[in-house]
């Protein structure tokens, strides 16, 4: 736990001082929220609230995606990846700490979008069940954290982390229904999105905003996040072993 917290604190401090990441987690959701406000102009307050939260989650995913890539890329670039992997402490725990830090920045994105909507656009946002909403948002950030570890495992294996990040941004936005409502997606995409914990969290967030019970999607989100966490742990161990055998860990 101490290692996890140390990794989380270190990465959070690094990312919080990076103009690129602050821009990514704050400016990007604001830009997409602005477009969405024009596109959904005249929509009821309940729909606007969902759009605002969706735009925030959009930024949270971007932060997780690029944060996971950047954390491994920079360790590799500065030559510190090998000592971290070779250290007797668990690299998987360190990776979880890094991923949790990038997902924590997602809270910035959600808060910034909310402030932008109310202060700049003067929108009236309504949440029927604030307690459930907080739980649903937390589940979304946990889901993003574990997905960040899956990404980190891939980035340990391959040097093409940044290119992969570019490719993965839109598919998850679409499949999880963060800004485009899942109901508007074609059936195959909607079904594919259901394997992501984030899509269930988005469902729970929408239900909380509307005052419906989010218990089932929330439980599904937690279950899928737990399964993803186990998968991420397994991947990280396998890939770490593979790069040690191949001697490619430090290649960049």
């Amino acid at each position: 736990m101490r290692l996890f917290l140390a990794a989380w604190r270190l990465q959070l401090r690094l990312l919080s001082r990076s103009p690129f990441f602050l821009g990514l987690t704050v400016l990007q959701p604001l830009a997409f929220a602005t477009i969405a406000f024009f596109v959904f102009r005249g929509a009821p307050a309940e729909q606007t609230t969902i759009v605002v939260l969706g735009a925030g989650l959009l930024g949270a995913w971007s932060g997780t995606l690029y944060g996971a890539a950047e954390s491994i890329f920079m360790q590799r670039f500065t030559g510190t990846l090998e000592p971290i992997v070779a250290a007797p402490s668990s690299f998987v725990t360190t990776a979880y700490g890094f991923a949790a830090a990038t997902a924590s920045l997602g809270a910035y994105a959600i808060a910034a979008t909310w402030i932008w909507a109310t202060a700049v656009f003067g929108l009236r946002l309504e949440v029927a069940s604030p307690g459930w909403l907080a739980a649903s948002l937390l589940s979304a950030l946990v889901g993003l954290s574990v997905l960040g570890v899956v990404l980190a495992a891939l980035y340990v294996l391959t040097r093409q982390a940044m290119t992969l990040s570019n490719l993965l941004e839109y598919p998850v936005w679409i499949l999880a229904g963060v800004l485009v409502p899942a109901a508007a997606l074609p059936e195959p995409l909607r079904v594919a999105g259901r394997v992501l914990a984030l899509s269930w969290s988005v469902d729970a967030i929408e239900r909380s905003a509307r005052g419906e019970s989010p218990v089932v999607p929330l439980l599904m989100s937690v279950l899928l996040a737990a399964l993803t966490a186990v998968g991420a742990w397994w991947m990280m161990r396998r890939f770490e072993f593979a790069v040690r055998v191949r001697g490619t860990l430090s290649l960049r």
Partner: protein
Amino acid sequence: MSVLRLAAVSGWLGFRALFAWNTPGLFFISLLAVPLLQITFFALLGAAAGYQDPTFFLIGNAVLASAMAGMVGMITVIADERRFGTLAHIVASPAVRAAVFAGRAAPSALLGTAVSLLCLLLGAVVLSAPIGWADVPALIGLLLAAGFACSCLGLALSAFGLAYREVFSVANAVYLTLLICTGANVAFGDLPGWLKAVGRGLPLTHALAGVRELAAGAPVGAAPFAFEFLVGFAWLAAALAMLRVFEHMAVRRGTTDLY
């Protein structure tokens, strides 16, 4: 003549050395896949809100693709010079820096134009968009103008890269501004006046208006071409001035090899 040769050689060498040629497959996939995914995302968003039709988002985001490849590609080239430790050598060399960096812009502009054209043609097939073969020369002209203007903007932004390490955060902010202000995803007429004013000074806005006219079957006059090139040349002038200022600043502070 030697300046032109320097620009051409710089562009060719930079393109070969810095454009991810060690994994060309992934490079080309990302070049095309990202704009296509972006078109899909915004088309779905528009469909969910009942705003515009998919062709609107196809055209907007396909033309915007030239910004991604042209502008961001341009910035990446200069940022990578810094990361690989070769920026200080370029700055220290007797070569005309403006020519070296401007030469880097040409491949990005051409790539951006090619990506936009491919996205438009692919999208036109999928969505049966009204862009016929007869429109292709005008379309290429407009996309070239947009690619040129975006690369000039990229060149101006990359000048920040001489003195400032986090140039991608500037690029990201400008790209998001293009996403909103050029009429790519929100109809230009729906934007408030001050955002329209910003958009008119940015690359893409005029070319995009021309492509939309083309898709609507209207004859395209010289205005969209002329205004797009005008915006491009204005950014080129700004870029050349900024390169001088930021190079001087970087040399004085000794920050060219920091990353």
